[in-house]
């Protein structure tokens, strides 16, 4: 077990290096929250994916602040650069002529819903939040030691020794995905 040393709770002045870093941290948090909200609430799918990409970018920033630059870079490379782009591409090819959202639907739908729907949803959400919060606060978190200095060298060595099994399993999953894609593409061609 490692003890987490908390910084003294003095707020640094805005126009110092620490102050600017703090503002950037808040910006990344805002990106995560706003991106997530856009992803959930957007009426158009492409906007939702753009929000998702924003959320991922913010998450990369959070990882960077957690002193894991490798995870941050991978978050950008894989989630923003590959996953989000592929989702957008898929949506674009599937429905390029997506119409603008119609405003009438939600207003008519609300009338048909039961009176209880709102309070019920709110109480479930509150319960979920409360239980997660209690879980987070009450659990004795086990802090794993960092692999080396957290640099790419140490991570590379542990990936091929301590966590070699996981690494191989992931490569098997990827190979299966590639072969599956090849089979599907070949079938489409015939």
């Amino acid at each position, binding site marked *: 077990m490692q003890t987490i040393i908390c910084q003294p709770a003095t707020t640094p002045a805005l126009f110092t290096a620490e102050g600017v870093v703090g503002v950037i941290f808040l910006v990344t948090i805002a990106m995560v929250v706003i991106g997530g909200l856009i992803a959930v609430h957007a009426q158009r799918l492409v*906007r939702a994916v753009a929000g998702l990409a924003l959320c991922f970018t913010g998450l990369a920033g959070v990882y960077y602040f957690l002193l894991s630059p490798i995870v941050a870079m991978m978050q*950008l*490379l894989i989630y923003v650069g590959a996953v989000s*782009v592929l989702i957008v591409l898929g949506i674009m090819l599937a429905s390029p002529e997506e119409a603008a959202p119609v405003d009438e639907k939600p207003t008519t739908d609300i009338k048909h819903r039961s009176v209880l729907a709102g309070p019920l949803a709110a109480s479930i959400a509150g319960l979920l939040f409360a239980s997660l919060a209690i879980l987070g606060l009450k659990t004795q978190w086990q802090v794993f030691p960092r692999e080396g200095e957290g640099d*790419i060298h140490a991570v590379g060595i542990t990936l091929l020794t301590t966590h070699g099994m996981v690494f191989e399993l992931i490569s098997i999953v990827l190979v299966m995905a590639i072969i599956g894609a090849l089979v599907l593409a070949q079938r489409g061609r015939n």
Partner: protein
Amino acid sequence: METSIWHALLYLVGILAFAGLNAAYLGYCERKGAARIQRRSGPTEVGYAGLLQPLADGIKLMSKQLLVPKGVDGIIFRAAPILAMVPAITSMAVIPFSGNIQARAMELSVLLLFALAALAMFAILLGGWASGNKYALISSTRAVSQTLAYEIPMLFTVITVVLISGSLNLQDIALDQQGGFWRWNIFRIENGHFLTMWISFLIFFICTIAETNRAPFDMAEAESELVAGFMTEYGSMGFGLFMMGEYLNIVVAACLTTVLFLGGWDCPLGLIPGVWWFLIKIYILIFTFIWIRWTFPRTQIYKLLNLNWKILIPFSMVNLLITAVLIKVF
């Protein structure tokens, strides 16, 4: 010094100035270069030899109305040009212009550059979609299939360099090549790397042309087929930002090529290394970009993808294997 806010501010202003100047004057250089190749004179009227032309263009673009056509997705349409600029400028923060001119000597700078390149692709994709125009949509799907495909051989060739230098830090990679052209990764004598590294360089250079959407691989804005591709609906500064983003991507690509293969700020014969050598190298590379654009005709999209999947990827994989073997054997 490292934690001082002035350090960050100084680099911020410096990088923005470098980026702005390059984005403006590369447009001028391109027009002049194109004109020379086509036996014309190019811009001559504004200032001496047309040197103030970028300023006039900038004022014109900024004073024009920002038209948002009917049927476009307003927010994404306005955000996409900004998104095209931001990654290119951000990448300059980790580029070592010389031994002591680098805003942030990051351990994973190579990875960061490729992560930011992925963001730039997102801008083209969103810009093309938000325009609500069929040409723009075709263009952005082309751009994405091309960029995703060419990232594979590019990363394979970068791995060869990373293997030789043993670091993902651009500064370490450049420092590893100091002391004369025979130590540069492209002509590296030790371990017999010169046997394969020139192939790596060639593959990498072809990939950078494709990644920056330049002719002969400018399928995304093939003006004879797609009007102007994803930029069709953009006017005034929206168009201007896309163009600046394109030129900045070229600058970043040239910087990356210089650091990875051409020894960074090192002098070919080991005399007075410094930032000037870096600038000379990147401008020679940028000139080559312009030269290639105006002397080669555009290819077709399927030929482009065939070249990538059937030639570049196998070659780069074999190249990686040979490099690894050379390192292991010697």
